[in-house]
């Protein structure tokens, strides 16, 4: 039933930009999450005009469309939940303009986050959002999921760095929203599209702010004998009106796995470490580092180390950014959660996570953006053990439920995607959904863009749907 459409796509893009054989489609059914969803055809546009034409053709044939960047997402946002056409932006990877004086860049959505920073670096600039996948993930994906990263604490998430967008609506119409400089008058449509997970429009061009590299950076590693002390320290640092550029926590179990692999210099006999970074003018940075060290000691920090040079600093960050993978070495598969809590409830939330782990029989690792209360508990499991996999999902749902109960949210930066759609009723009422649905329908009335995301498929309020089949991609005969 796709053969007619495939021919039209091939006429438009050339045969090397259209995939439809089963062996090729199989490679687009996964992303960085544990979800799965296979498209029927995958296309690689290079221009906005292509995207508009693809959207129109798909609409004529009534096929849904899902956009995808590098496929590094952690919530299944870029998976074809209901099949259809997958539009991969990876070849739309041109940096159109790098305006150094005004600190702006205009890029296609397939530009890799790291490549933008690399291009800007020569001018003392960089793109601030820095998710762990920054070396591969695309700016378009960052926009769709409103990605964060360790430096979110001081600099905000992707939406704080996007000033204008070009988008393609489900009928193929091309629109521009926002303005390169200053605040666009009227509704903040840019803000509406950022984080809409490809359910309102497809983004084809992005204007972002570039940040200036700070004059001075200091990176501290504070070592604690108890998780509670580390958590209390985070609460206290922010209570004293110090805003570090980043404030990350790794618990003892996690840092041992990381150290074993990365050799970042994490002390393996400690219960938790905080990785704290302060940036700014040299004088301020020195004062802040001193104040933070004092707070750490007040909460019984065993030691507070200061990275001596860039090499040491990079190594500490390498340990942090590769932590999930390092834990991944301990089990065939892992599930990285994303939940938010009020910062002040950190010690309590970590205790509850430990309890949930004990209850379901998992050692749960904690690596997270402590400064803004964005937790990333990680559950290790073996997908060959179906029962264990279901227990992992239940434990995960329980943790997210706890985050919401204590006044937090069910995602901080990974997005809702497929992963969390069924958990959304924990946070939102029917009236909330009705309002969101009206916004959704104003742009995407037929749900032709990224269907099956954000909104729960089931009607039940607060009921957590537990999947009965293993959705991990490894099948064992």
């Amino acid at each position, binding site marked *: 039933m796709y053969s007619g459409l495939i021919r039209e796509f091939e006429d438009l893009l050339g045969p090397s930009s259209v995939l439809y054989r089963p062996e090729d489609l*199989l490679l687009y059914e996964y*992303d960085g999450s544990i979800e799965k969803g296979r498209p029927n055809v995958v296309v690689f546009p290079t221009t906005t005009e292509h995207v508009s034409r693809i959207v129109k053709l798909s609409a004529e044939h009534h096929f849904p469309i899902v956009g995808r960047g590098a496929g590094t997402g952690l919530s299944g946002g870029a998976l074809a939940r209901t099949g259809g056409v997958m539009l991969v932006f990876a070849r739309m990877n041109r940096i159109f303009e790098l305006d150094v004086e005004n600190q702006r860049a205009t890029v296609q959505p397939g530009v890799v986050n790291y490549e933008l920073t690399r291009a800007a670096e020569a001018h003392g600039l960089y793109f601030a959002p820095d998710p762990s996948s920054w070396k591969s993930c695309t700016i378009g994906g960052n926009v769709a999921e409103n990605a964060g990263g360790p430096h979110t604490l001081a600099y905000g998430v992707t939406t704080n760095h996007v000033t204008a967008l070009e988008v393609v609506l489900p009928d193929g119409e091309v629109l521009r929203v926002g303005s390169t400089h200053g605040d666009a008058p009227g509704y903040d449509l840019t803000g509406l599209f950022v984080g809409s997970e490809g359910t309102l429009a497809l983004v084809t061009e992005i204007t972002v702010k570039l940040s200036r590299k700070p004059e001075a950076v200091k990176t501290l590693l504070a070592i604690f004998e108890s998780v509670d002390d580390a958590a209390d320290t985070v609460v206290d640092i922010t209570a004293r009106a110090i805003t570090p550029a980043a404030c990350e926590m790794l618990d003892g179990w996690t840092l041992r796995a990381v150290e074993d692999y990365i050799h970042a210099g994490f002390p393996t006999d400690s219960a938790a470490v905080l990785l704290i970074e302060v940036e700014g003018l040299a004088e301020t940075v020195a004062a802040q580092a001193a104040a933070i060290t004092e707070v750490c000691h007040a909460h019984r920090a065993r030691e507070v180390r200061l990275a001596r040079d860039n090499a040491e600093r990079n190594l500490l960050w390498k340990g942090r950014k590769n932590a999930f993978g390092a834990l991944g070495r301990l089990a065939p598969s892992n599930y990285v959660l994303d939940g938010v809590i009020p910062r002040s409830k950190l010690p309590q939330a970590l205790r509850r996570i430990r309890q949930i782990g004990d209850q379901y029989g998992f050692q749960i690792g904690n690596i997270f953006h402590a400064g803004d209360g964005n937790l990333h508990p990680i559950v290790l499991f073996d997908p060959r053990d179906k029962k264990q996999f279901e227990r992992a999902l239940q434990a995960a749902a329980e943790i997210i439920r706890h985050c919401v109960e204590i006044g937090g949210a069910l995602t901080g930066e990974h997005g809702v995607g497929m992963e969390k759609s069924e958990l959304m009723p924990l946070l939102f009422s029917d009236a909330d959904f009705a309002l969101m649905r009206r916004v959704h329908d104003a742009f995407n009335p037929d749900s032709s863009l990224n269907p099956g995301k954000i909104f729960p498929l089931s009607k039940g309020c607060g009921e957590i749907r537990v999947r009965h089949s293993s959705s991990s991609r490894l099948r064992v005969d």
Partner: protein
Amino acid sequence: MPRSAVPGQTLVYEDYARCIHCGLCLNACPTYRLWNLEADSPRGRIHQMIQVELNQQPITDSFVDHIDKCLDCRACETACPSGVEYGKLVEHARARIERDYSRSWLATVTRNFVFRHLLPEPHRLIDFAYVIRLYQRSGLQAIARGIGILKLLGLAERERLLPRIDDNFFFGRLGSTFSAAGPRRARVAFFAGCVANVTFSQLNEATVRVLTANGCEVVVPKEQFCCGALAAHAGVRDAARDLTRKNLTAFLCEDFDAIITNSAGCGSTLKEYDHLFSPDEPEHAQARAFAGKTRDVTEFLAAFGLTAKMKPLPIRVTYQDSCHLLHGQKIREAPRALLHAIPNLDFVELPYSEICCGSAGIYNVTQTETSLELLAEKMHHVKSTGAQTIVTANPGCLLQLRAGASIHRSNQEVLHVVELLDRAIVSA
């Protein structure tokens, strides 16, 4: 998981499951960077291997194509947070292809000749070199290029990558011992390579000179053979295993302080000789001992310390990381440290030096078009450095970059790190 009968290697579920499909490898992969296709990314290739190995899907033309297109540069291993041993996986996939898939008649005959009869046999290599040298020196080359016959045969691109054959082969040096200049600080064995003996004799001579000038007595064992890397990378494991056995005998007869190679590609395989044998085979322990002694020449010298006096070399150089040194052996600092040790050398980092130049063993012959695309990108960055000399650490990269300098008319000299050291060393 079924045991696939690949000689000396059994992979298990966990070897594949370690990949958590996070995609952090994508942008590190040269072929993904070129085409942005999942099928030509490390994550996508592993997923295809899983279909074949764990889910027992047949080996299709498409599978072979994507596995063939992999450079085996192992940049994905550097990027991988989970420690996936991609090199091991891709060599296994290639061994499966070798065993279970029929290539075209021509490909089968050529591969069989190169891996089983040419590289392992010095006398054939020498004969072959004579023929090419005759072609290069007799004027035949000029004629062939002039009348366009190469273009007609579709060989024009490949012919440009042909190495220049040496006037004097290094084969004559096998069996020699070179004494240290000044007090002897170490006694090392030199691994001379195979093709290098007829195309990189000067590099080998320079390596011996630099080692002896810095206090090493250098033994070049007579009965040494090709390391088997090219065969192993191509999945021809039986040939690689045969060569390994011969080299184990040649180099383990004496307790050398180190076994030294100037080829990152060879070194990476020599350091993984034990991967070619299963732990229950008698060669396994010997292979481990061999691997434990192997050092890249830059790694060895940086740790050993340079004692020879060097004169200033006031030129601007840039360094292209050899993939099998950086990603295969995780050696980044040693070659840079050696370059920094040369007085007055103006060293500038090469942007994207961690990305393959497209040489990749025989990749530039088997996948010429892709190889030249990568080379064009590489030369673009090289030109941006304004360097007069490009330095690297592997014969294959030297060939490729020399071809690049000529094709892209960059007028840059291409040298191995030890060749530059050799120039700087003031002979006593």
